[in-house]
């Protein structure tokens, strides 16, 4: 059985290390905060100007001045600090954030990432994604292995406009985990019940 969204998030949470400052993207990456391993303390950054992001507020306690990068209402924690957008991206660009976990439309075997636009169709913008992938210590992508037509999203080369060039370190999909290495992708782990043949058949990129 391939992993579902929550299992993918739980697997991505295993990437977290004690003491890290981490940025989680919108979608499945947001769910990662539900699975932070026992004994691991991580501080979540929200690029709109916050370190120490807390859970959603209780009903009636929403504060319009307190949102995350997905514009959702959130809460603060005892260690929370606020700052402006210039400082927020100074810490991202300056390499102070240990890891970003992001969604993607396509990833290539050389670590190229595309997740911000589909020409002529979807024009929303890159938000902070280009800054994150260029600046943070480690980039982990969490996404479905194939699109809704069954085509691989793990490619030899991206077809969509790039968010960053050679920036992805690890890819976690519903079928398993891959690392970007010299010459292609290396399988690190297969989802429970997924065979290597199945994994390879769903992957367009070179597996070494």
């Amino acid at each position, binding site marked *: 059985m391939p992993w579902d969204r929550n299992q993918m998030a739980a697997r991505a949470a295993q990437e977290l290390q004690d003491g890290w400052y981490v940025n989680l993207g919108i979608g499945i990456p947001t769910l990662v905060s539900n699975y932070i391993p026992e004994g691991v303390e991580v501080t979540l950054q929200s690029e709109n100007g916050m370190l120490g992001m807390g859970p959603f507020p209780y009903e009636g306690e929403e504060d319009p001045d307190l949102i995350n990068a997905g514009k959702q209402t959130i809460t603060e924690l005892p260690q929370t600090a606020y700052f402006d*957008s210039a400082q927020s991206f100074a810490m991202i660009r300056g390499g102070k954030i240990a890891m970003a976990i992001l969604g993607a439309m396509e990833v290539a075997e050389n670590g190229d990432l595309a997740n911000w636009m589909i020409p002529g169709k979807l024009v929303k913008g890159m938000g902070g994604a280009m800054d994150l992938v260029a600046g943070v210590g480690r980039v982990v992508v969490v996404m479905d292995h194939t699109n809704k037509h069954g085509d691989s999203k793990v490619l030899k080369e991206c077809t969509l406009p790039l968010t960053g060039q050679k920036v992805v370190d690890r890819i976690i999909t519903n079928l398993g985990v891959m690392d970007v290495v010299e010459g292609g992708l290396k399988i690190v782990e297969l989802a429970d019940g997924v065979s290597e043949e199945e994994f390879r058949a769903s992957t367009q990129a070179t597996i070494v």
Partner: protein
Amino acid sequence: MKKVYGSAAEALDGVLQDGMLIAAGGFGLCGIPELLLEAIKESGVKDLTFASNNAGVDDFGIGILLQTKQVKKMISSYVGENAEFMRQYLSGELELEFNPQGTLAERMRAGGAGIPGFYTKTGVGTVIAEGKDHKDFNGETYIMEEGIFADLAIVKAWKADETGNLVFRKTARNFNAPAATCGKLCVVEVEEIVPTGSLDPDQIHLPGIYVHRIIKGEHEKRIEQRTVRKKEGA
């Protein structure tokens, strides 16, 4: 010199001109200068260029100026919440310059700090880098981005004193601080104006040197994505 004005319209009197570049604070609908945007709409000024992370939603924020076709160009990082924006952009009525979010913030900061250009790794190898100066430092490639020098900055803060010292609240600070610094003239709307001397000088987020005009008003502070959790046992 008196910085406190009676209304948004009064504070913008004699300031607005067709074709001007306006830097606006806010992230999504959080911390946007909603009263000043409304006054800009009422003024009828047009062909505006906005440097603003987002473009509001259809009926709030910069979105209200899109409906009246007062905006010629947006410099933004994300415009996914605004159907009217998408319609005008895809039909060629509206120009759009996408900037990575951190590049946009730094362009404002740099403009305010008298820095006309800077190098960044963000966007190297993407469409953002096309036509930009590339330079290697310590074996890594960077691209040059230019500081933003806006004709006007419009900003929302929580509190101001009468000299324009500002305090922001939580994540509503966002682009407001860098936007404020990069405008030739900066107009700020706040929820409360307190007597000079009542703010702790050590707790001021933006000193009044950047602030030229201040108004106080009632803010709607609309929430874009209301997300909550249930109380345990409830």
